[in-house]
């Protein structure tokens, strides 16, 4: 094989295409892109007002994230210990949150306050704003544990948005190339969360590699194609879409666990966003649920049930 004019006679020395196991979000652009995507998808959606509101939240998240100082660095020895024990770096249930998440929360609330929203949303916003700091901490634990009463769903959106900003900020100090897969490998190596959805986008290395997208810290980690992102089965999988509809979303259904996780393919549309496109294709969820599969992955912007 010839590489740049020189002959490589040792097959073990032939350069191979790079493989990327983990990607951290592009913190400077993530939220602005998402807001634009929400705005675009809202135009054709029966739930357009909700999507536009989530676009406002994304914008407020971006402002809150940009205002935080540089994240504290992560000690390499500590990282090694966590990896030895198969632990995520900032586990969603055991990481001791810094006060920065509350700073982010206050900024998000302030950013949203001037915008248009239904009365119920404004009430929930005021409710979170009025909460004491310890109450907010306790509430955050329940949001992260997805253990919420029905009347807490509205305030949980704002708290969840702030926690997301915090985790993205905290993970910003990590070197993505040093992170390793969890056991089971469907969990996020950064925070241990279950995936929101999976992505096949233009940035995958090798090309057409599938990544799972974290619902909390928004890391993407590699997960082999044609394998259930819920139970890990490689048999009984099928890909469902709405007949005759061009959409980046398909439901990867699994007959072993009767669950499904959506897979978004962004080849034609480089702008796809895991959160915005997941919610804008909610109609597919309704049809797939009707057909008997249960959605395995929670979207913190739309908790239900």
């Amino acid at each position: 094989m010839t590489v740049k004019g020189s002959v490589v006679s040792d097959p073990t020395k032939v350069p191979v295409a790079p493989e990327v196991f983990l990607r951290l979000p592009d913190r400077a652009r993530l939220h602005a892109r998402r807001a634009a995507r929400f705005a675009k998808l809202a135009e054709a959606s029966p739930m357009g007002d909700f999507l536009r509101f989530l676009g406002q939240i994304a914008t407020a998240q971006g402002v809150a994230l940009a205002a935080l100082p540089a994240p504290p660095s992560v000690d390499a020895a500590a990282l090694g210990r966590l990896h030895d024990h198969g632990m995520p770096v900032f586990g969603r249930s055991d990481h001791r949150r810094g006060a920065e998440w509350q700073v982010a929360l206050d900024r998000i609330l302030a950013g949203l306050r001037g915008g248009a929203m239904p009365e119920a949303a404004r009430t929930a916003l005021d409710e979170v704003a009025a909460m004491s700091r310890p109450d907010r901490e306790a509430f955050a634990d329940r949001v992260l544990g997805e253990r919420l009463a029905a009347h807490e769903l509205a305030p949980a959106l704002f708290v969840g948005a702030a926690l997301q900003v915090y985790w993205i900020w905290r993970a910003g100090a990590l070197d993505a190339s040093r992170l390793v897969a969890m056991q089971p490998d469907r969990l996020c190596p950064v925070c241990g969360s279950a995936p929101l959805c999976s992505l096949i986008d233009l940035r995958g290395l090798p090309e057409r590699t599938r990544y799972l997208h974290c619902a909390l810290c928004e890391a993407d980690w590699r997960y082999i194609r044609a394998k259930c992102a819920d139970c890990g089965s490689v048999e009984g999988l099928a890909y469902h879409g709405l007949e005759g509809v061009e959409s980046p979303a398909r439901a990867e259904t699994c007959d072993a666990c009767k669950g499904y996780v959506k897979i978004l393919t962004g080849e034609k549309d480089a702008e796809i966003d895991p959160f915005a496109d997941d919610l804008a294709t909610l109609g597919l969820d309704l049809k797939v649920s009707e057909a008997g599969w249960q959605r395995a992955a929670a979207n913190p912007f739309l908790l239900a049930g």
Partner: protein
Amino acid sequence: MQLEVSRRGFMRLGGAALATSTMSALGFGAGEALAASVRPFKLSRATETRSTCPYCSVSCGTLVYSLGDASKNARAEIMHIEGDPDHPVNRGTLCPRGAAILDFVRSAQRLKHPMHRAPGAKEFKRVSWDFALDRVAKLMKEDRDKNFVAKNNDGVTVNRWPTAAAFTTSTQSNEAGLVTYKVLRGTGIVGIENQARI
């Protein structure tokens, strides 16, 4: 106050569940409009199946896309084949021949039965498997009897059949590769092309 606390997910998300959701709790009542918008649609079903490119012994991994619900007696049809990005050999790439593999699957000229063109004849005609296997066995035997080399010029036993070669398949397992070698080398064939060569 007694709270009804449950593990909220997105789990049982049907039209009814949207009535108790973040969207409705915030005052966005779009659940019904959404359910109505997808009511006329049916679900389409596709599968992705791992396979191996059959062209050469490199054995690149492929993903084969089929459309249709085979489980409901509907005819499934292969729509697309691409390199498997998770396969360590080719990491998602395919050579030009491998990339054109879909046309190979669907080719109208694809051989489906044993065909025979008799010496001097212009046309191939369909024959039975028994005929084909007998004919191949007979010709192989004749050729082997004529050309088999038991010893080389130095008198060393080599047991070669240099006038025959075998091209088998790249989509076989190690065990099938072993059996292929045992059988073919047993006859003296040295030129064997299949996955076990690599």
